[in-house]
């Protein structure tokens, strides 16, 4: 296993962990079925890209996008996080205020599809279907990105972001505020009857989750240096939901485990199978990626049927000094 491969794996793991922590906060803890989660990661990536890139007239003007501010790190990442949060405001305002929660899920799914279609077809806006390429890696003016130390550096910055995200979600989930979120998830009307404002709670968590998702997108685009509609199709959200369901809804450790088992694990297994020539040549081309979707579907169904609480269930809170 070479360094590049190890770094690659760690960075992807970090990004998936951050995304899963955010989705767990929204879905596992608060009960918002955010089927457009990947759009928030995407907007963070686009924002970080155009903030860090020069105007599109550079590089011979072969691609078209708005902005181009050549901002130094960490401004593009902060911008990506802010963009995720900002997007959550209008979306939450339309979707979370009035609709019933099952309709919310459908509305968010539709939004994900529409957003992808619009960005694909608006080719002057964010590169259209071809997307944006040559996104400068963070700190590339300080240290050569094609070196081993840079790989370590990127792993390091990603790890810092993972810790940051973990501290935020842990503090929220394990606080009295997190308890209010869980109560609302359990029974919204009763929560309102004891003074909780469901719309405000959901809006807040939608925005917090959007910020964290945006950050994950910024980290991802800084690493892969390209961004296009094909990497944020709505099924990507389903993979993250699978991770939360497998790991354990409402449990942050479960979300981390889920991130490692599902998105990271599946990518790795697929890659290994594809690398093995005798397996990769079985059946028609594209069979293994297709089977990956079948496997994810079966995984979700299997867990919902046999272990709906996931590998690590939501912890039962026991207070000191009680009886027994």
């Amino acid at each position, binding site marked *: 296993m070479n360094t590049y491969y190890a770094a690659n794996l760690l960075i992807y793991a970090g990004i998936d962990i951050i995304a899963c922590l955010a989705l767990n906060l929204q879905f596992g803890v608060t009960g918002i079925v955010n089927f457009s989660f990947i759009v928030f990661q995407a907007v963070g990536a686009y924002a970080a890209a155009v903030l860090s890139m020069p105007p599109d007239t550079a590089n011979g003007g072969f691609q078209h996008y708005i902005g181009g501010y050549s901002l130094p790190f960490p401004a593009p990442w902060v911008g990506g996080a802010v963009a995720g949060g900002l997007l959550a405001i209008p979306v939450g305002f339309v979707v979370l205020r009035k609709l019933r929660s099952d309709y919310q899920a459908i509305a968010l799914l539709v939004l994900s599809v529409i957003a992808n279609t619009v960005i694909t077809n608006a080719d002057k806006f964010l590169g259209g279907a071809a997307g944006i390429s040559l996104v400068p890696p963070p700190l590339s003016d300080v240290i050569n990105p094609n070196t081993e130390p840079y790989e370590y550096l990127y792993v390091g910055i990603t790890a810092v972001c993972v810790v940051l995200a973990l501290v*935020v979600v842990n*503090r*929220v989930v*394990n*606080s*009295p*505020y*997190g*308890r*209010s979120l*869980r*109560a609302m*998830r*359990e*029974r919204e*009307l*009763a*929560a*309102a*009857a*004891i*003074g*909780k*404002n*469901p719309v405000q709670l959901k809006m*807040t968590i939608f925005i*917090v989750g959007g910020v964290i998702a945006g950050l994950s997108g910024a980290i991802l685009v800084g690493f892969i240096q390209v961004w296009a509609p094909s990497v944020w199709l709505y099924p990507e959200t389903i993979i993250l939901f699978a991770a939360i369901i497998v790991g354990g809804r*409402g449990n942050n450790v479960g979300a981390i485990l889920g991130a490692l088992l599902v998105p990271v694990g599946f990518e790795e297994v697929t890659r290994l199978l594809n690398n093995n020539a005798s397996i990769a040549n079985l059946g028609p081309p594209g069979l293994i990626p297709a089977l990956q979707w079948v496997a994810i579907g079966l995984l979700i169904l299997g867990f919902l049927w046999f272990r709906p609480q996931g590998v690590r269930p*939501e912890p*039962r*809170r*026991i*207070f000191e*000094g*009680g*009886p*027994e």
Partner: protein
Amino acid sequence: MSSTLTAPTDKPMLVANDIHRHFEGMHAVDGVSLDVIPGKITGLIGPNGAGKSTFMAVLAGTLPATSGTIVFDGEDITRMPAYMRARRRLVRTFQLPSEFAQLTVLENLLVAAPTNRGDSLFGALMGKRYWIEDERRLVGEARSLLKRFGMSAKESDYAGSMSGGQKRLIEIMRALMLHPSLLLLDEPMSGVHPKIVEEIQYYLQDLRAEGLTILMVEHELHMVERLCDTVVVMAQGKVIGSGTMTSLRRQREIVDAYLVG
């Protein structure tokens, strides 16, 4: 100056005026007016489907009124959302179990406390040290309620695993954590063990002695007789009579409509 002439306790705490609530042409509540006098327990009785629960929901704001006005503590709250009414100490319970199933019994009580510094995004992000004192105080308060209702041993069990009667108690305790000034109880005794019924009854009397005002729907007429200072009778969405239980028993049409048969 004139306010000193009328005893403040005689001024109604809540005035509901000509409340209507329709469900697609079905007049569940059909022009109900009612005053709730502070420091007293008002009973609301009537046959099944009379509209009692619907009326309580309209008062608490969990259902909007089709028309009519509600004034609480001198403020028109007709259009106020339920959570704001709860923060103004107008608190309801539900006729059907409404516990937070995946929270423990103790958490069901704690979550209702209105004064926890950790119960905001900011407070949560500040970390445990910022709110732990509030939390400790509230755990103490919640535990003394649990003790009073004989549920101490259950504090760490999930509320969803409790019996129907225990869920009812959890809901009453949860409402009390809000320190209500007006408590709306929808059949608080149904499904509760007789021993606990007595406990609830004493507790409600204590609370009234401490100045809490209660409006309660109750089917058990002996309980109504013992607890309630005045009783309002509803049938088919309308108020058909009110007064003390003794005076109501003398009114023929009320007896016919509800008290017997």
